[in-house]
């Protein structure tokens, strides 16, 4: 969340123009902020139901750490979905790469950095394997990755020989379980903010990210004004910045009161920034949107469709390997069942976050918020002691509702 808003792409507020265009812009605006509204609504609901437990420092910290691997997968998944494909294999790849991390680092005793690099490289090879069949051989991704789901789950069993590998060295575990705490000391929190001690480094980093957010947004806005693009009113802009800044600082304050900044949040923030920029501003990202929006038109515009599709899957493979590392580090265990059904959570995150089933639409930050929404649901319902059976039902209904809203709003605006 914190750094995510900083990369909100350059889609302006709906211009005050008449006719269908106004409608489509309004829909676009609503569709994009809809997930944010839904996220905060659900968070507020659970804050009330759990009498504030969900907003405790420890719980907020847990929320990030517990969902980090799903969020990493969701970033890759939303890009795959924007390109008009799907990847069902990521859960198995998480297991497979986690198992390899165990073999390299625990059994073979390789240095952690080398083991991690090797595993990420193998993730790229896995992605290239699937990307080849999808992009160059022309087999639907659903089939290729369904096969991959079986292949890499089997691969996990083969690598582990049906045994578990543990424990990992501390430096590896810190990827997921470590915190940047006490680097530059602590300060006392004023009583009106709840009192207690807070990690200064985390707070400073939070303040810096708010500053960066406001700086980039102001710059974007200035550029838009310069090119006579329509922008929302100044008051609305300031209000939006203020709300985002306060939300981030509140979030950071809670983290700093617990154990400080989880390393994995740092990794995640960098990934969100990087991929948001890639999808919005890079030629590659534009080409992904173009391919998902209209494959034929993209082909006839000279876009190297096969190559772009291939790299989208390679990227997914690398991110799945990263998720595999983070998950194995968190469990301190390479287990044959690691990552089972993670693909479903990642896909759900992307769709709840506003990606279109038909491709061409979706945002990295949307997938992140979608993933966090599922995380808050899980976390909140666990605190409330909701039966696991009901938890599943409710998550399923939320997914269905999110996509139904998408389809409904498209129909309302007369889109296809």
């Amino acid at each position, binding site marked *: 969340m914190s750094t995510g808003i900083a990369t909100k792409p350059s889609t302006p507020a709906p211009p005050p123009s008449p006719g269908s265009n106004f409608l489509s812009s309004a829909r676009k605006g609503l569709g994009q902020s809809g997930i944010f509204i839904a996220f905060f609504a659900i968070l507020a609901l659970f804050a009330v139901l759990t009498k504030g437990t969900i907003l405790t420092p420890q719980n907020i910290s847990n929320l990030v750490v517990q969902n980090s691997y799903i969020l990493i997968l969701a970033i890759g998944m939303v890009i795959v979905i924007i390109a008009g494909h799907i990847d069902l294999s990521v859960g198995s790849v998480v297991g497979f790469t986690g198992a390899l991390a165990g073999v390299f680092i625990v059994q073979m005793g390789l240095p952690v950095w080398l083991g991690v690099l090797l595993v990420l490289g193998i993730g790229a090879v896995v992605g290239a394997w699937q990307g080849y069949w999808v992009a160059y051989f022309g087999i639907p991704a659903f089939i290729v990755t369904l096969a991959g789901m079986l292949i890499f789950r089997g691969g996990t069993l083969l690598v582990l020989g049906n045994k578990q590998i543990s424990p990992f060295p501390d430096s590896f575990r810190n990827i997921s379980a470590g915190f940047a705490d006490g680097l530059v000391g602590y300060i006392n929190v004023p009583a009106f903010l709840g009192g207690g001690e807070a990690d200064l480094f985390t707070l400073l980093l939070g303040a810096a990210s708010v500053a960066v957010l406001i700086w980039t947004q102001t710059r974007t806005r200035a550029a838009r004004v310069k090119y006579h693009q329509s922008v929302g009113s100044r008051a609305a802009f300031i209000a939006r910045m203020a709300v985002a800044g306060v939300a981030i600082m509140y979030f950071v304050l809670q983290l700093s009161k617990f154990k400080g900044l989880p390393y994995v949040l740092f990794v995640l923030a960098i990934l969100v920034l990087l991929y948001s920029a890639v999808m919005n501003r890079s030629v590659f990202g534009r080409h992904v949107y173009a391919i998902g929006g209209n494959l034929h038109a*993209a082909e006839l515009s000279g876009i190297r469709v096969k190559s772009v599709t291939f790299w989208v899957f390679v990227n997914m493979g690398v991110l799945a390997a990263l998720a595999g590392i983070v998950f194995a580090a968190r469990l301190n265990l390479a287990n044959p069942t690691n990552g089972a059904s993670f693909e479903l959570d990642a896909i759900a995150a992307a769709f709840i976050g506003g990606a279109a089933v038909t491709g061409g639409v979706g945002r990295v930050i949307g997938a992140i918020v979608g993933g966090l929404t599922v995380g808050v649901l899980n976390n909140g319902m666990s605190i409330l002691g909701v039966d696991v059976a009901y938890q599943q039902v409710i998550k399923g209904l939320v997914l269905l509702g999110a996509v139904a809203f998408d389809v409904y709003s498209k129909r309302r605006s007369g889109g296809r």
Partner: protein
Amino acid sequence: MVDDQILQMRSITKEFPGVKALQDVSLSVRRQEIHAICGENGAGKSTLMKVLSGVYPHGTYSGEIYFDGQPCEFADIRQSEQRGIVIIHQELALSPYLSIAENIFLGNERSRRGMIDWNATNAAAAALLERVGLSENPVTRVMDIGVGKQQLVEIAKALSKDVKLLILDEPTAALNDVDSDHLLGLLRGLKEEGITCIIISHKLNEIKAIADSTTIIRDGKSIETLDMATGVSEDRIIKGMVGRELDNRYPEHTSTIGEELFRIEDWTVHHPQHKERIIVDHANLTIRRGEIVGLAGLMGAGRTELAMSVFGRAYGASITGRLYKSGKQIQARSVREAIDHGLAYATEDRKVYGLNLIEDIKRNISGAALSKLSTRGWVDDGKEFEVANSYRTSMNIKAPTVLSITGKLSGGNQQKVVLSKWMFADPDVLILDEPTRGIDVGAKYEIYLIINKLADEGKGVLVISSELPELLGICDRIYTLSAGHITGEVPRAEASQEILMQYMTRDQRTLTDLPAEAIEDPAHSVQVSETSIDLKKG
């Protein structure tokens, strides 16, 4: 005379949020007539027909509809079909993998106790096919017959529903002249059988040929209804549609023709799936700097296939032949390579091959040349906006901002976006495939002006069109293609619809009538070209 009228629509007003699509529109159709509805794109023709057929249910519009003297309050399209009103949309609603018979009785199956009676289905389908003059086996899959025949299947489907009022939306837009003539003849026959027709068409010559009356709609209002028996001219209809006299449908233009720019030599293309089928056969074609060259041919002659195979082998298999750019041989094995060599191809099917309809105007315009707006892989948003905005102004794209979604634009404006995209890629040779298909008269004129401007800038333009008057109106030189052969090359001064049609049908005759060696001889097609060049010199 009120009882003479099968349909009366009175004061129909239909509003979409923010837009009045129809405003106080009235339409009266006499029993057993062919009634044409004309109007520019976006005038409200299709909306009116959707109101009539229940696509927009009763209550979402105001006004009254009487059919056969009875008021109509359709909640959906099934109810209008039960009363005998059947609409055939421009985009045919057939399932390609099902047989003709299955399509005809789709949703209306001939069954006994829940099981389909295939004998009854196929027999009834055969009878209907005979009625529409289509000699195909009812069990043939729809995907295996041409679009002209598919249109007939749609009509057979309508007949199976016991249609009284048949509405056809642009029925001949995708048909060649032979199929169009057949279709129009069929409509006349149906009229004799007592079926009333409403036909929406852009092709004024067709309307003149078959309509008994014509209602003109402009800007969501019904302007007038003309009795065609009194000898209404095409220009008279155009005047009603655009609200002004249109003296000249093609802008005056004198091309400044320079040296040879692009040459296609000995170009042969095979069908991508059926490799033994030759789609383009040893074609030769030259485009010079500043020249607008036409490519005429009947449906299935291979025009689009020729263009797309040249454009980075976007179509076809086992392609042989040579391409020359300014005298130097070039390779265009991928679309990217073709674009890099300065080629551009604007497709005939904007929605399927040309545009990303869910994206905005800006990103569509930059789509083919994003590298021009980026440094080290990162796109300059502001520059992109500026570029798009300048095209919106110079091309007169009617949209409030370049952030408007292209899917919401009218056909003419979509086409301008496609052209902007290729102009921004700054090619030397532009291939425009049916650049004015489905575009209203006013926008067509603008497109012609753009084509002229491109030629004036020293580019070579190849225009593929099914409308011969259009080719005659804007091209300096016209090639004809027939069954994959270039069968003629005619300079504008000597071209006429009759001559072009002769060439366009030539090869089909030679294939059956001439001895085998004439077909084998690849020089055959060249020969014709040379004679016409001689004609031009002389």
